[in-house]
Structure formats: C-alpha cells, structure tokens
C-alpha cells in the first residue's frame, strides 16, 4: 500500500504544479482571500468566515468519500468530534502545544477512520450508512457518558486557544484560510492523481473498477482515512478556536445533517461546490436569524427538494459562472464526461 500511495501523492504534487500553470486565476482567487482582512474589519464577519472555512474543510473532505468514492459515510461528524476532543483533552490535561495536538487529533481520527472503514469494505451502500451511523452514535454516547474525562453534556471548556493573542480575529482568519487552502489543494491534487481517477471509477461502478485492476479495498481504505484526517483537522481547529465542546453539538447527527445539506446545496463531486455551500449556509443561518427555529425545517426541505429535483446542486450554476470568467472550465471537462 505504501508504494502506491506515495506514488499517488508524488503524482498529486506534480498535478498540483501543472494546476498552478493551468489555472492561474483560480489559484490567484484562492490567495486573494488572504487580503480580505484588509478590507473587512468587522470581527463578526471574520468570525463567520472562520466558521465557513472550518465547515468547508469538513464538507470538501466528505465530498472525497461520499461524492467521489460513493461511500455514504455518516461518521464524518464523529471524526470531527474525535479530532476536537482528542486535541483539546491532550492540550488541556498534558499541556502540549495546541498546534501539535491538532495534528495528533487528526491522526487519531485517521486511525479510527481506518478501523471503521474495515467493516465497510464488504458492505454495500445502505449497510455502510448504518454502520457509520451506529459508530457515530456510539462515539456520542461514550463521550457524554465519560463525564470524568470529557465533562459530558456540561461541556468541555478551558481549552487552550491556538494563539496567545486573544481577540485578534484576523490571525484566526488567516490560520483557518490556510488550513482550508491546504485541504482544498491537497484534495484537488488527490482527485487529479491516479488515485483520484481510481476513486471516481469505484464511485461509478465498483465491479467494473475491480475488473480493470483497481485495488478497490486499498483505495477505499485510503479515501476513508484521508477524509477522516481532514475531519479531525477541522474538529481540532474548531476546538481551539471556539474553546467549548459539547457532545450533543459536535458529535451529533445534527452536525452531520449540516454537512450533508451544505454539500448537497453546493453539489457533490466538485470540491468547490461543498465549500461554497458551507459559506452560503453559515451566512444564511446567521443573517436570517428570524428563521432560527425553522432552520432545520428548511434544511430538511432543502435536502428533499435538491435530491429529487436538482441532484447536481448549485454546482452547475457555479460552473457556468466559473466558465464565464475562465476559472473552472478545464477542471470540469477533464474530470467528467
């Protein structure tokens, strides 16, 4: 497995280089986001954008496993929670630097993701949903029952912040953006690598993929672990930014529903779509506070309507705009038929 994956990663890096040459404008746009704190001073909006980036890390990495590989995983929120709790507990109880514990948290998530992927290998779609759902419920119940360690539903607070300078949203903005950019670029490189094509093939028809010599087992395990890594990363980032963790918020199916809605609105199998969907939903639910109690009512309706009548989500619209300004065209037509 090691050889294949390191080769794919190497291929991914070279793909990334060619991407920079091929789509300079898209890359420039990503880096233009770094300038936003110069223009937007409001800490409130910057805070929302930080949340948007964290959600975007979650949704784009879910897109890798659900959109591309076709594994409908319900455990993504749980991976996020595991990363968050591991990182904050390590930094709180053992005094380790949060930057390091975020990495440890993500690696823990990766390991658990790998273990959860094992029983999923033999199973088909609906069964995978159930296994991952059961796993995330076990994670939530365990976390809220281990009151001595996690303080359960009382909430874990007193988590050390990522930065010693408090109240400077700009710095957090830049950090979150960097994490998001790193996630997006590495996922993009992965999608465009040999492994990415293999994953898409598995997502479209597992049997055919196997018949042309793709090692389905290995790739599925890799996809699952990689997406769990990024989910853990998002969780760690969230924990050391918001500084409060409650199992019923971060390990819940509610978060999973949000991830799903965001990704579906944006359009699966596009990476950019889920990221845009995340921002959209974060801002909509903040600015339409009047819809507060109706929020999940609307999410539910949105999921139904999108799946039935607009299965590709907003991604078509996004692509059309992107094509117009020359951002997305080559990405679209090479990846898809």
């Amino acid at each position, binding site marked *: 497995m090691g050889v294949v994956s390191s080769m794919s990663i190497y291929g991914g890096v070279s793909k990334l280089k060619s991407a920079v040459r091929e789509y300079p404008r898209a890359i420039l746009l990503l880096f233009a986001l770094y300038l936003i704190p110069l223009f937007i001073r409001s800490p409130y909006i910057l805070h929302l954008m930080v949340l948007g980036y964290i959600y975007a890390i979650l949704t784009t990495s879910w897109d890798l496993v659900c959109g591309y590989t*076709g594994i*409908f995983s319900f455990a993504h929120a749980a991976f996020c929670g595991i990363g968050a709790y591991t990182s904050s507990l390590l930094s709180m109880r053992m005094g380790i630097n949060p930057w390091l514990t975020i990495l440890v948290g993500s690696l823990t998530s990766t390991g658990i993701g790998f273990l959860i992927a094992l*029983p999923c290998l*033999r*199973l*088909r*779609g*609906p*069964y995978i*949903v*159930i*296994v991952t*759902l*059961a*796993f995330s*419920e*076990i994670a939530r*119940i*365990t976390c809220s*029952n281990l009151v001595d360690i996690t303080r359960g539903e009382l909430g874990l607070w007193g988590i050390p912040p990522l930065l010693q300078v408090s109240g400077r949203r700009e710095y957090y903005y830049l950090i979150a953006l960097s994490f998001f950019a790193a996630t997006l670029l590495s996922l993009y490189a992965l999608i465009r690598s040999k492994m990415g094509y293999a994953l898409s093939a598995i997502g479209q028809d597992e049997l055919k993929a196997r018949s042309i010599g793709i090692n389905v087992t290995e790739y599925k395990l890799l996809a699952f672990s990689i997406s769990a890594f990024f989910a853990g990363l998002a969780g760690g980032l969230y924990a050391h930014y918001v500084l409060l963790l409650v199992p019923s918020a971060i390990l819940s199916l509610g978060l999973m*529903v949000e991830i*799903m809605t965001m990704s*579906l609105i944006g359009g699966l199998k596009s990476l950019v779509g889920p990221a845009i969907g995340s921002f959209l939903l974060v801002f909509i639910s903040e600015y339409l506070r009047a819809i507060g*109690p*109706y929020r*999940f*009512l609307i*999410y*539910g*309706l*949105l*999921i*139904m309507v999108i*799946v*039935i*009548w607009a*299965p590709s989500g907003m991604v078509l619209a996004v692509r059309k705009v992107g094509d117009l300004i020359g951002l997305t065209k080559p990405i679209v037509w090479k990846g898809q038929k």
Partner: protein
Amino acid sequence: MVPWDYIVRQLFYGLVSGCMYALMAAGLSLIFGVMKMLNFAHGEFYMIGGYVIYFLVVKFGVDPMLSIFSALIAAFLTGMLIERVFLRPLFGRPAWDLSALTVTIGLSIFLQNFALVFWGEKYKRIPEYIAGTVSIYGIPISLQRVLVVVGSLCLIAVLWGVLHRTMFGKAIRAVAQDPDAASLMGINPRKIFMLTYAISCMLAAFAGALLSPIFMVYPTMGASPFLKGFCVAIFGGLGSFEGAVLGGMLLGLAEVAGIALFGAEWRDVIAFTLLILTLVFKPSGLLGRGE
C-alpha cells in the same frame, strides 16, 4: 441475591421494548425487502402515531381504542402520500437506494422539526389506556404493558398472515423477489411499493400509539426506536419479517441483561455494538437470505 420477582419484572419490561423494536424493525425490513431502500423517516411515523394519540385522547377526549385506530389510518395515508410525492420520482435513477435514503433523511429532519416548531418541545403525558395491574404468580405488572405486548403480537400475527396466506401477501413477496417478473404476472410493482411503504409506516405508528403512555410524546421520540429498529432489522436479516420480530424480542431481553451488567446509561450502546458485530461476522443476519 437479586429477588426473583425483580428479575421477572425486568424481563417483562424487556419484552415490552422488544415488541416496540420488533414492530419498528418489521416495517423497516419490509420496506427494504420490497423497495431495496432504507426508510430514515421511520421514526417520524412512530412520532406521528404518538401525536395523533395526544391530540385525540388528551385534547378531544376520544376513546383510546378509536384513537389508536385513527393513528393507524393517519399513518397509512401519510405513508401513501409521501411515497407518491417524494419517493416515486426517484424510481429507476442510477443510485436509487442512496437518493431515496437521502430524501427520507430530509423528510425525517423536516417532520421532527415540524413537530418541534408547531407542537412544542415539551414532553406530553398520555393517560394509560387501561389502568391497574394484573398479578402474575404474585408479581404485579401494569395492564398497560400487557396491552402493549398483546397488541403488538396480534398485529404482527395478522401481518404475518397477510404476507403468507393471501394473494396480496404473495404479490408483495413476488415484488420483493423480482419486480420485473412480478409485473409480467400482472402485478403492478408501483402499487405494491406504495402499499408496502404505507403498511410499514402503519406498524411504526402503532408502536408509537401503544407506547406513548409509557414513554411520553415529544418531537424526537422516534429517533431512538428508529435506530434500535435498524439495528434489529440488520441483526435479524434485512428483508426478513420473521428475523425482525425475533431480533426485536432478543434485543429487548439483551438490553435488560446489559443494564443489569453495565448500568442504564450504556443501554443504547448494546444495540449498536450488536449491529456492528452482526455486520462484521454475519452480514446477512439471523434469518436473512444473504445477498
């Protein structure tokens, strides 16, 4: 030494939850067997059953038995409507099972929050249908719980009879095996899909209606029975009606044993562990035919 009347009562309580799991799992299994999809909105039909009872019995003072009957009808009609509007447009799409599943997730969130917004989050108490206790070998057991067990077993028996002894049941089983071949025999698979979905929803609503005096009525009341029902349906073998019933009873009893061993807060973990173990070691379940 634990007094034995305590053990007997706990076992009986296990049987009561077992009936609930059996009803939920039977419906889920039936839907999966015939339509090859998972109904994530199943818990919400349990909730609908509870709310129909709340409105009829508590608000309007209707006779409980009549209310249970109305809950069944309401769930049946809602089920038919939902199948027609939200599921039928998806038939024949490439990833039918996953899109149907996603739609029912949306539906579940919608219905749950509909109840939350319009009917409030307060737990609603329902008076017992039959007050008093019955004494079995000197151990008092509430009649309400006896009613749950007897009622569930009756409904399960009736449904088993319908599935195995009538032409309609034969049609359902035929569609479950092969919708195309069934339609060649003059069966309309779409009609069967719709009726199967409606009947399964009815089972869930029946569980909700019967158990609401014990567990109360609130917007998320369906979440736990739904998840447990799923575990049971897999444990018994997805698509197998008998497996679901047997698995439900077994889980009810296993939970009682688990609570005695590990404490009540770990109760829900038992079902999920059972589920994952089943999928790892025998994915086709107790009585499933396999894939």
